[in-house]
């Protein structure tokens, strides 16, 4: 930062610092040094004073020493030859009787970032590792790491590494943690510090002495340790138990991560840990600091991916305050959408509705989109609100509502009729291209249900010359062609004009090509075009598969308490040290191997005996979908029982009691009603679909299996039947 007249200032300081009168007056001398530091921190280049400052380091005044050291550390790399002169003073200070001075000198010597320092600092560091003052040992331990980073490509000094491992038993807790930190840096290329059984237990036993920062770090290091047996595992967990309720949010979250990692095979333990940390997490969500609140919300969001019900009763905590920053409001809305259930839906919707008129258009649009997400399950109430918003005649709101309608119609086709009615009844034309596209899509896809659709469309075609966005034009082309296929008489003329304009006058190549494509397609005949353009409409059960789904904890546990979820994107910047060792490793194939753990339950010979079902590792939606598509239907039968009229939760719970896992089912009032379930038995995985058509009452069961085992299917069918019958009786 070039300051006006800065050279003059530096010259004057130089004169003053070398003035013997000033040097003899301690106070004036120190004032000048303070001035130098002040300029330095303001970004002024005062490196030309280096010699004078080195002289000033020979003093008994600790503050003056600190200031000079600070100066030297900043400029040492620019003036390596001069810095060597300072080293002598520093080495002398390393043998000072005052431990503060020893520590200070050593720390600053290690902070000189210039090549060739190692030979000067190695000996003092090694000596200081055995210093009797813990303050000096703390500095020395980290000094080892700094020394290593000065010459990163040299071989690791085994002597120092051994010394550091030995210091893990130091009586001072900070030295212990610093050892871990230093070893981690020195051994980075070899995967970091090794946590074996004795070290792990030693650390666990000293957890209570550490300050919260150190606790959090040790917990992260412990992620690397794998207990040998369940007994050991539970010993560790009970030692860590009290940290789940720590007053520091970062310790709570680190402990939770360790719990989830260690207990990955014990789902009950995981669930219990999540339950117990829900209170501290919620407290973080309403902390005074907005940054903490934000981080808390991000963590809650992750937990909810597996346990959406955990925070359902606390939904009011996620209502937005007026003065909260927008990044918090966005997260809260995302959480509210996930929390909705039968009891709170009307209150949550009422709350979201009030956000829709927020002064910030982004926030308003996000709120409308949130209502749209809820509409996939609770269409009627949401449609009322959305329709009401249209009456406000605000541009950004109208546009967002229409976009929401489009997504809703696609994901939840049951609502098509209501949406069409609303759009038909009169909607302002949205002004932005996103909104226009959405409206055109609706007109094109469902034009047969809207009487006025061709006239709206015609308005757009007439205004084509003033339309700037090419994506809108392309959407218009597609929509008009679709409309032509269902209402040819009204549309033929305008389609002709549109195609003519797009082919003859349009300058955008993409639009022209799209127009030509449709033109040639239409030349092949209407039937052919229909086959290509109007593909299959969306499937009513889609909303189930894309809707809320409970993911296994392992899906997100590896990124829990990391920066990724807060930064709002999955990819991390290329930070050099996000090593594989830092992340607990999960073999991706593990959960996809069906029944691998159940094989030992019963040998192949005893299949005639009672076959039991088991839950096994949970199946992700993707893998279920993939297998369902890959496999053939082995068995289909009408069960002869109708669908139980109980709440979905009850059905799910009772099936789970009998070791049948429910993956997804359609909302209660949809027709046809479907449910996807699976279970495991004797090394085989059974996937099944329950279907209730529009007319007949009885459920139809389709079963797929891998590998094939007819006994297991028979057993499965009988269990399922009995569950359904019992439920129907109730």
């Amino acid at each position: 930062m070039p300051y006006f007249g800065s050279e003059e200032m530096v010259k004057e300081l130089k004169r003053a610092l070398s003035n013997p009168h000033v040097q003899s007056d301690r106070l004036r001398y120190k004032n000048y040094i303070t001035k130098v530091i002040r300029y330095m921190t303001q970004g002024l280049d005062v490196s030309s004073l280096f010699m004078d400052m080195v002289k000033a380091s020979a003093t008994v005044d600790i503050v003056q020493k600190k200031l000079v050291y600070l100066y030297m550390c900043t400029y040492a790399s620019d003036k390596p030859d001069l810095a060597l002169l300072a080293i002598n003073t520093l080495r002398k200070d390393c043998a000072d009787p005052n431990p503060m001075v020893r520590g200070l000198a050593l720390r600053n010597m290690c902070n000189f970032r210039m090549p060739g320092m190692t030979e000067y600092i190695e000996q003092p560091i090694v000596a200081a590792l055995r210093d009797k003052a813990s303050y000096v040992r703390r500095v020395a331990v980290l000094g080892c790491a700094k020394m290593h980073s000065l010459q990163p490509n040299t071989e690791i000094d085994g002597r120092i590494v051994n010394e550091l491992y030995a210091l893990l038993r130091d009586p001072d807790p900070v030295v212990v943690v610093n050892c871990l930190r230093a070893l981690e840096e020195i051994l980075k290329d070899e995967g970091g510090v090794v946590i074996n059984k004795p070290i792990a237990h030693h650390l666990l036993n000293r957890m209570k002495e550490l300050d919260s920062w150190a606790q959090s770090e040790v917990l992260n290091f412990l992620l690397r340790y794998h207990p040998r047996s369940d007994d050991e595992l539970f010993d560790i967990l009970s030692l860590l138990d009290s940290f789940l309720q720590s007053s520091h949010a970062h310790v709570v979250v680190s402990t939770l991560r360790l719990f989830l990692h260690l207990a990955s095979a014990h789902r009950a333990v995981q669930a219990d840990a999540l339950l117990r940390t829900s209170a501290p997490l919620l407290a973080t969500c309403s902390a005074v600091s907005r940054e903490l609140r934000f981080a808390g919300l991000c963590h809650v969001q992750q937990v909810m991916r597996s346990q959406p019900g955990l925070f359902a009763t606390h939904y009011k905590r996620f209502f937005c305050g007026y003065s909260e920053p927008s990044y918090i409001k966005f997260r809260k809305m995302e959480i509210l959408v996930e929390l909705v259930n039968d009891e709170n839906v009307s209150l949550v919707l009422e709350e979201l509705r009030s956000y829709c008129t927020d002064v910030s258009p982004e926030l308003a649009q996000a709120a409308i989109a949130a209502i749209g997400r809820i509409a996939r399950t609770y269409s009627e109430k949401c449609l009322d609100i959305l329709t009401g918003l249209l009456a406000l005649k605000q541009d950004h709101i109208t546009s967002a509502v229409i976009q929401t309608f489009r997504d809703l119609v696609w994901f939840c086709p049951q609502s098509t009729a209501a949406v069409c009615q609303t759009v038909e009844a009169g909607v302002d034309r949205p002004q932005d291209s996103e909104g226009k596209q959405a409206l055109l899509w609706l007109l094109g896809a469902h034009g047969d249900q809207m009487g006025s659709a061709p006239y709206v469309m015609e308005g757009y075609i007439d205004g084509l010359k003033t339309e700037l966005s090419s994506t809108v034009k392309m959407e218009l082309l597609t929509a008009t062609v679709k409309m032509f296929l269902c209402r040819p008489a009204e549309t033929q003329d305008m389609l002709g004009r549109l195609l003519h304009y797009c082919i003859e006058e349009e300058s955008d190549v993409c639009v022209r090509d799209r127009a030509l494509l449709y033109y040639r397609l239409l030349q092949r005949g209407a039937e052919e075009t229909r086959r290509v353009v109007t593909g299959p409409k969306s499937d009513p059960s889609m909303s189930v598969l894309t809707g809320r789904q409970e993911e296994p904890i392992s899906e997100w546990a590896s990124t829990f308490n990391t920066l990724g979820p807060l930064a709002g994107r999955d990819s991390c910047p290329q930070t050099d040290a996000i090593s594989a060792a830092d992340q607990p490793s999960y073999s991706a194939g593990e959960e996809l191997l069906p029944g691998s753990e159940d094989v030992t339950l019963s040998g192949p010979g005893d299949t005639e005996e009672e076959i039991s079902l088991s839950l096994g590792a949970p199946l992700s939606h993707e893998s279920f979908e993939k297998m369902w598509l890959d496999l053939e239907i082995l068995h289909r039968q009408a069960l002869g029982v109708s669908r139980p009229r109980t709440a979905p939760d009850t059905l799910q719970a009772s099936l789970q009691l009998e070791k049948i896992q429910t993956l997804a089912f359609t909302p209660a009032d949809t027709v046809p009603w479907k449910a996807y379930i699976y279970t495991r038995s004797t090394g085989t995985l059974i996937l099944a679909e329950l279907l209730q058509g529009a007319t007949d009452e009885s459920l139809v069961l389709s079963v797929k299996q891998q590998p094939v085992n007819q006994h297991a299917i028979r057993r499965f069918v009988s269990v399922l039947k009995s569950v359904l019958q019992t439920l129907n009786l109730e």
Partner: protein
Amino acid sequence: MIHSLFLINTAGDLFLEKHWKSVISRSVCDYFFEAREKAVEPDNVPPVIPTPHHYLITIYREKIFFVSVIQTEVPPLFVIEFLHRVAETFQDYFGECSETTIKDNVVIVYELLEEMLDNGFPLATESNILKELIRPPTILRSMVNTITGSSNVGETLPTGQLSSIPWRRAGVKYTNNEAYFDVVEEIDAILDKSGTTVFAEIQGVIDACVKLSGMPDLTLSFMNPRLLDDVSFHPCVRYKRWESERVISFIPPDGNFQLMSYHISAQNLVAIPIYVKQNISFFETGSSGRLDITVGPKQTMGKTVECLVVTIHMPKVVLSANLNATQGTYNYDPVTKILLWDIGKLNPQKLPNLKGSLSLQSGAPKPEENPSLNIDLKIQQLAISGLKVNRLDMYGEKYKPFKGVKYVTKAGKFQVRT
């Protein structure tokens, strides 16, 4: 862990930087400035900003951005809490944490930062221990220092770091032994138009000021500990005893510290001390509007509501306000569009009322949404949750200490919708 720290004011001037490892160029802050510009309001700058080679983790406090540069994967809560601790330490040392005080005390700031982190790792953050390493500036001491030329650095090592209880140093001596506790409760609430509670909870803390000689072992018990279900304690509290007996047993740190914090979120337990009758409306024509607000006591348990302030963020089109307050003073700032009504003490016999007309920009359409009211208030000698300290006992030392408990209730994020 934490590579570098930059302090930036709201005008976008970088006024302090500190690097614990290699020096990172200031240009890394360009990513921050970009986000700052996009956010418009300083409040809205996201706390985590990813850049191609680093993460920037930012907190915004007292009109200062604390921007930390992170190069390795770290737990985000860890860094955020640490940055707040840095800000709190400044506040503790200089009385307030502002750009001016930081610039005035730049030398101490550097000393502090040097002791708080080494090589990017947190080292000494307990205020007790820091104060022994680096003495805080006081007017008297800086005068003495000027005359004698002595420094403000402790000559001896902090003993607390070596005692078996890390938060308390050995050999504390006072002539007056005293222990004071402040029970501070903040009500966070949202009331809707009709006065119904949409959401309410109490955030409470117990701040302690303990100046006792030796190694006292204290036990604090409540009349109604069942009220508290969501609590977190200072590390000195024996959690097992709380779980089994519902008493707080601890060896206190020396000086000021926060003993515990708690939340009470069950709505039936949260009393709302005041009610607000309001009517703010804008006319379709004539570019004007009307405002009428009355505040009255609701559940105050017989105590007086003090320091009552109503703040309203008006829509952009409101140009001026011509109002009449029966009590207190009002002020409308046409630039920030904030109407501030400072009422003071609430008199239940004569309810304060603010009434009058608002003039809008001519020709502008009627504002879409009604503004909401933020309330600030204070009630002395009352913990609104009903929490009461029963008794405080001391073991381990022979003298008789002075003991005292004060209660105060404040409004936190207290909002009334219109």
